[in-house]
């Protein structure tokens, strides 16, 4: 999907940068190879981007302008309709909004609005991230029991952070699409508090 958008809008100064929060590049490989991207398609096993941007679930979309400024913050949006039945979001309005931003500069939010839509980290969520970092290191050392303790502690400290709670499932040997995931989802899916898209009637364009 993002490759198609890159081919459509790349000549107009647009670049998609995908970051996979996976434990192993091999987990992301099927997705990346299917897309054959020519744009940056990156792997973040250490959750560098999750920490720097305070990402709490996937997918997370962030608009960054030509000066490196965030002009539309974290939004739970999708590039395809694969899981629309689950989350109820369609990709077409978002992709149209993206086109309007690249071509006409539309959809940019003023700084105060961007800030008001950011989720703020707390001492607990930041402590959760270091427990997750320690757990990940322990896991890589083959110390699974100790890793498990810190993954669980991280999840207790940041119950609404699925990069920690769901993202650690594959590391802990738990199926992230299995019963534990559906138990987790009962607590509510963490979505970002973004406002509606700025597009006026822009849902007609078919994308694939």
């Amino acid at each position, binding site marked *: 999907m993002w490759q198609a958008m890159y081919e459509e809008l790349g000549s107009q*100064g647009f*670049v998609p940068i995908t970051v996979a929060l996976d434990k192993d590049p091999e987990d992301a490989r099927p997705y990346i190879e299917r897309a054959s991207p020519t744009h940056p398609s990156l792997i973040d096993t250490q959750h560098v981007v999750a920490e720097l941007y305070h990402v709490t679930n996937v997918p997370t979309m962030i608009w960054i302008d030509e000066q490196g*400024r965030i002009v539309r913050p974290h939004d739970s949006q999708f590039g395809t309709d694969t899981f629309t039945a689950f989350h109820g979001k369609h990709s077409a309005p978002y992709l149209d909004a993206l086109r309007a931003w*690249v071509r006409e500069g539309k959809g940019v939010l003023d700084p105060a609005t961007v800030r008001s839509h950011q989720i703020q980290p707390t001492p607990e969520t930041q402590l959760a991230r270091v427990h997750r970092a320690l757990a990940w290191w322990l896991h890589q050392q083959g110390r699974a029991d100790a890793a498990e303790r*810190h993954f669980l502690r991280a999840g207790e400290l940041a119950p609404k952070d699925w990069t920690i709670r769901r993202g650690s499932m594959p590391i802990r040997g738990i199926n992230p699409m299995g019963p534990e995931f559906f138990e987790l989802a009962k607590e509510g899916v963490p979505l970002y508090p973004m406002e509606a898209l700025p597009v006026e009637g822009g849902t007609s364009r078919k994308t694939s």
Partner: protein
Amino acid sequence: MARSKLFTLIDGERATSLRASIDGDAVRVAPDVLRDATGWELKPEGLCQGDLCVPVRDPASLADAEGVDLAAFARALDRPLALDVAERAAALGTSAAERSARLATLEAPDFSLPDLHGRMHTLSAHRGKKALLIVYASW
């Protein structure tokens, strides 16, 4: 009785193996070792990283002859610390206040990450373009 042990300190993306003095739940690290692992140095004016210094309210509780106490060090800098004495490892993070302040600038934090082929890419190399950052996962 404190014993000197190999200990791993994870600071952001970097894990350093160092010698620490472990006594119960307290982990102490020699000041020069801590400086090499974290960039922070204990000076008369407080804890300093380059020209930046943070005053320390109670220097006596921060360091003694065995070294700098890791938990007190994290508290003095208001940084989160996950400490596992039994596993002889700890991870230091960024405080909520600092992370919030950086996010509030609206400057996109820069990062470098590898692609599938191990080639590194840096966000700021795309200045001058409109970039869509897409964070996703296989899970």
